């Protein structure tokens, strides 16, 4: 039997952020744990949502030193010095629309903190607007999302795989910055590099991908987004430890979390995260492999440490997925509360007033109305909800609408705000907002178009 304690080369990967709004201090306990580990160790930050890139592109167009993650400083500053000192390599997609700019900013942070200049590799090539015509992009087969034929493209990026990250690590760098990559590649890249896997090690690539998939949402694998008090309790959720993977050369790995943190790692937390954003678990497709989860086994070896084994890999896809962003007008949202006796009926009347006003003033746009407190996230206001609600109580109406022009969105939210004087009795607490919207679509591109364009630059 494989002895996980003594026989194996091990690689440690911690995840310090699972999305753009994740906690800025989450990586500190991981770094503390890593200080006493002598094996190769990596810290990944996943901070790039689908729509983020369109916004980032806009920042870059306005100022060519910007366009990387606006949260870069928050994530990097608390740990940069310790990472450099203790040889913890950072892998992140903080590059967003400007990976070179992100690298330069990290060098600046090092200078500001008076610590040694980090050596940073930057992976380029995900921005297909640099090498595909808008026409070729719009004529590509679409996978999901809206029809993009008539869109003004604001960003178009292909999801790169893990080999560019592995190749970047060969240059003996401290940090690798990418733009758009599949999230799991932030873990698979270091594993390919450390274990020297090639593209044919399909089961290994699959296990590394599944490991990355489990890590990529931060604490979602260590008990966060899991707690359901009384049913699924999680200790000290406020202090949840972000995940650490201990990956062994035989392809098995453990998921655990730092010392002195809250949270929970067990089969249940792992299984929830394993299936998160997974469709067919036998065919989890990334650029490097098609991962098969169907033979996976989970073993709770010790408290908060689970062994994951049994990943199987199939041949990598010929087509790569790219996300196309385009502008899609404005969303107006507005809310108003009704409480006390007969509140539900007053809330319903308020919505009736708004709907008839929209009709009267001839506002064109897709709209939706909810009553918060009466099943709003599962039912719109025009549906019977299936929860137990009383007429009396606390209800908050919400109006939402998409409009091509900002002015129409403003007029739309004004129709909720004006309920202060012109609505049913005793409405209070109005709030309104207007958001510029981006729509996205996914297309498929032949990988032979993409691969020659991938480049690594050293900063």
């Amino acid at each position, binding site marked *: 039997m494989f002895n996980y304690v003594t026989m194996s080369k091990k690689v440690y990967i911690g995840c310090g952020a699972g999305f753009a709004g994740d906690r800025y201090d989450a990586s500190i306990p991981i770094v503390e744990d890593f200080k006493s580990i002598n094996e190769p160790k990596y810290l990944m930050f996943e901070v790039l949502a689908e729509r983020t890139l369109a916004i980032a592109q806009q920042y870059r167009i306005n100022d060519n030193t910007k366009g990387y993650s606006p949260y870069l400083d928050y994530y990097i500053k608390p740990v940069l010095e310790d990472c450099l000192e203790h040889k913890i390599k950072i892998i992140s997609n903080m590059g967003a629309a400007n990976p070179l700019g992100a690298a330069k900013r990290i060098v600046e942070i090092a200078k500001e903190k008076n610590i040694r200049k980090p050596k940073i590799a930057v992976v380029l090539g995900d921005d297909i607007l640099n090498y595909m015509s808008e026409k070729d992009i719009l004529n590509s087969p679409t996978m999901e999302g809206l029809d993009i034929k008539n869109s003004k493209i604001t960003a178009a990026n292909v999801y790169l795989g893990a080999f560019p990250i592995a190749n970047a690590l060969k240059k003996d760098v401290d940090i690798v910055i990418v733009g758009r990559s599949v999230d799991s590649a932030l873990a698979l890249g270091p594993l390919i590099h450390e274990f020297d896997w090639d593209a044919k090690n399909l089961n290994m690539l699959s296990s590394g991908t599944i490991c990355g998939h489990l890590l990529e949402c931060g604490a979602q694998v260590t008990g966060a987004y899991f707690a359901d008090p009384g049913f699924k309790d999680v200790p000290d959720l406020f202090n949840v430890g972000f995940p650490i993977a201990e990956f062994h050369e035989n392809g098995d790995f453990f998921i655990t979390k730092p010392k002195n943190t809250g949270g929970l790692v067990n089969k249940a937390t792992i*299984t929830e*995260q394993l299936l998160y954003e997974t*469709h067919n678990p036998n065919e989890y497709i990334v650029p490097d492999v098609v991962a098969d989860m169907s033979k996976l086994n989970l073993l709770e070896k010790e408290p908060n440490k689970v062994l994951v084994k049994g990943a199987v890999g199939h041949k990598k896809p010929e087509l790569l997925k790219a996300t196309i962003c385009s502008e899609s007008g404005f969303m107006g949202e507005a809310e108003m509360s009704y409480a006390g006796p007969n509140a539900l009926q007053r809330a319903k009347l308020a919505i009736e007033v708004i709907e008839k006003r929209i009709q009267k003033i001839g506002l064109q746009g897709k709209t939706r109305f909810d009553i918060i407190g009466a099943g709003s996230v*599962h039912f719109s206001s025009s549906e019977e909800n299936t929860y137990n609600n009383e007429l009396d109580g606390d209800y908050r109406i919400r109006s*939402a609408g998409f409009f091509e022009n900002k002015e129409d969105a403003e007029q739309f939210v004004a129709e909720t705000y004006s309920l202060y004087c012109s609505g049913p009795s005793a409405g209070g607490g109005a709030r309104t907002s207007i958001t510029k919207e981006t729509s996205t679509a*996914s297309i498929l591109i032949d990988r032979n178009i993409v691969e020659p364009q991938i480049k690594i630059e050293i900063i």
Partner: protein
Amino acid sequence: MLHKIKLPVHSIAHGRAGDKGDVSNVSLIAYNKFGWENIRENATEDIVLSIFKHLGATSVKRYELPNLMALNFVVQNALGGGVNSSLRLDRHGKTLSSYLLYHLILNVSLDMMPNNSPYREKFK
């Protein structure tokens, strides 16, 4: 055979919802093998589709992971257009797991539940 009562599947399983475009996936993971047998047999594509129908769902594909006592439902068109075009408060459909856990009602016996389940009171 143990006494069974009708309860939300929340009593014997947990889950999480994810989104990609206008496609939602909702997992359903049994707490133990008795619960697993129940959901494997009764949490069918048809019944899950009927539960998500009012949200616009057009089809449901079910995947099984027996090793993990888990089902994964891939629900088409249940997100009101997906995160970028949905007017819903919960644009990602992250609360859809709760919706399934509450609205899928199964015949449940005590052996399918975790030891500390508050639902055990219903059997008293």
